[in-house]
């Protein structure tokens, strides 16, 4: 069975729109939800806008939309047209449908998994305390062409970090928690920072970790300990090294650094080694982090984490 099709339309954007509808309509005659379409289209076409192509295809009677524009489907005329084109054309390498690229990126980092799953919540229009059914998450993930076990891994990470909560009702639902919604609104990591994220480790998905606010407090304290207040900066390696004093697992060290950037507490400069400088907001966080109450809460969180690690080690002992 082949999935390599000739271009289904002379216009490249229309061809991509039709390729997505052809591949992901379930049931075949029903079409697909517009949000699912948007997600898939963005993965293969980047920021290219499908709206004009969809309008053109609707005007020519190949596609139809529901009144609320939540659903998109191929009409019988559209199906006839792409079928004829498909039969008449010689097999030729099709426009890449994204699957191969998505699977050839190597093992993803926790950062990548976290962003990919949260991206689905964003694309599906799920906000703080909103939820998505497991089957819908699966459908989005499957159209991305990524490996199914990575969705599990990503969800485990999000649940571990308190970004998402699972509820087993008539359907299994995943609810976006406040911390997850906040994370989604923050800045994405620039490429030099993202490159420093290590591949996700399966066992670490169930580790007890610190809440984001405690990670931020610890990370900003490293700047104080290393006397790296502006205009001085820290390298990423120095920040990691400083965080090791708290016996944080490697994934949490990167997460702490990424959170600092995401929430605007640091700026990054890449001059061969990534340099990190506290912003004014970062200095404000440092002042807050110095309060006795925050120190106490952070110590409690660290104690909880150490105790959970020790319990896990005891359980694993022969």
């Amino acid at each position, binding site marked *: 069975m082949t999935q390599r099709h000739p271009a289904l339309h002379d216009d490249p954007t229309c061809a991509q729109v039709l390729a997505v509808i052809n591949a992901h309509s379930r049931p075949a005659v029903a079409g697909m939800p517009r949000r699912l379409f948007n997600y898939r289209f963005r993965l293969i076409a980047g920021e290219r806008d499908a709206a004009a192509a969809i309008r053109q295809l609707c005007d020519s009677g190949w596609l139809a939309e529901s009144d609320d524009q939540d659903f998109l489907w191929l009409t019988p005329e559209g199906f006839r047209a792409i079928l004829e084109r498909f039969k008449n054309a010689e097999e030729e390498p099709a426009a890449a449908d994204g699957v191969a690229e998505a699977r050839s990126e190597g093992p993803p980092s926790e950062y990548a998994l976290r962003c990919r799953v949260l991206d689905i919540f964003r694309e599906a229009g799920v906000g703080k305390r909103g939820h998505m059914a497991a089957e819908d998450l699966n459908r989005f993930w499957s159209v991305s062409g990524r490996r199914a076990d990575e969705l*599990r891994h990503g969800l485990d990470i999000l649940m571990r970090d308190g970004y998402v909560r699972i*509820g087993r009702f*008539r359907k299994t639902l995943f609810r976006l928690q406040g911390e997850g919604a906040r994370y989604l609104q923050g800045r994405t990591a620039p490429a030099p920072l993202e490159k420093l994220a290590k591949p996700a480790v399966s066992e670490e998905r169930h580790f007890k970790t610190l809440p984001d606010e405690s990670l931020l407090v610890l990370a900003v304290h490293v700047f104080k300990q290393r006397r790296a207040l502006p205009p001085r900066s820290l390298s990423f390696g120095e920040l990691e090294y400083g965080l090791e004093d708290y016996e944080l697992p490697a994934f949490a060290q990167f997460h702490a650094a990424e959170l600092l950037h995401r929430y605007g507490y640091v700026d990054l400069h890449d001059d061969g080694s990534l340099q990190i400088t506290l912003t004014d907001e970062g200095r404000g966080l440092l002042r807050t982090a110095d309060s006795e109450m925050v120190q106490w809460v952070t110590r409690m969180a660290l104690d909880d984490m150490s105790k959970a690690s020790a319990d896990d080690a005891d359980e694993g002992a022969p």
Partner: protein
Amino acid sequence: MSLQVLEDVSGNAVLNLINDGSLSLLDGMDALLLKYLWRRAGHPDRNLASALQGLLEAGLIEVVPGPDMAVRLSTRAFAALQQAWRAAPGSAAEGDDSPDWDSVEQGPVQAGGMGAARSELQLRLHVIGIYAELSVPANGRISAASMAHIWAQLRHRGEELRHAVDLLQRDGHVRVLREGGVAYFVLTEAGFHYATGRPPPAQLIALAPPARNQDRRIKTLSDQDWIDLLLGELARAGLAQGPDAISFSEIESVLAPLRLHGFAAIHAAELAHRQALLEWSGASDAQFLWLEAGRTRARQAMSGEVQARVRDALLAADHTL
């Protein structure tokens, strides 16, 4: 949702299956998957053949050229089904719009929350069940794409198919063959023998521990070696001659000194049950009953020749921890 577009019940059912299970509009539906879903729905094979013939002649479906046989909807069938779909009452969201999250226990974070981890036995049975349902003979094959398509239609997780195929390869039940850029899963003689054995009862399946990633690609024993190992050890412990019943705990105990992997006891016991050497008693304390063929095999397993073969197999396997 089944759509009514044809008077002929079988033809209508086939159109609905293709509509629901097509890989894409143009690629249509794998014929093996169609056959599998047809049989699972309890329809006789002959009805499928005649329905397909009728649909082809009526120009409602087309054969898709390619390495695997597939069929897709014609434009006529597409138009009829779509009209029926649009006319059908909307399948509104089924509840859960505002669930009571406070009533849900958070509990420990586990395994993605998409269902409990399955055992090796469950994974093996799912794949072997597909071969059995399709009546695939020894050395018959199913393409990896078809298998993945069937697996997805059964709503199993994709990662579990990889795990299951690894297990079946490890145990010698399936081998992977690549031909002209297409991968096939070939059912071996041992796999066919396994598939035609007695299926385990649910209580026995429930005893199996969750499958572990680290066990999926190790070198292990053949089915015959597992059986001879288990029955030989039971005989050596004096459990093959005396009582009619042995518990699963006793099976675990006799294998424990060998320090085998966690799946060993249930795998060996299931094989012995499957080949009608032991019988699951259905008793609440997880008991097996000796069958006469089992006692005979146990005596043979005590012979020097068999013991030497099993010992060699154990030495060659990645079993000793």
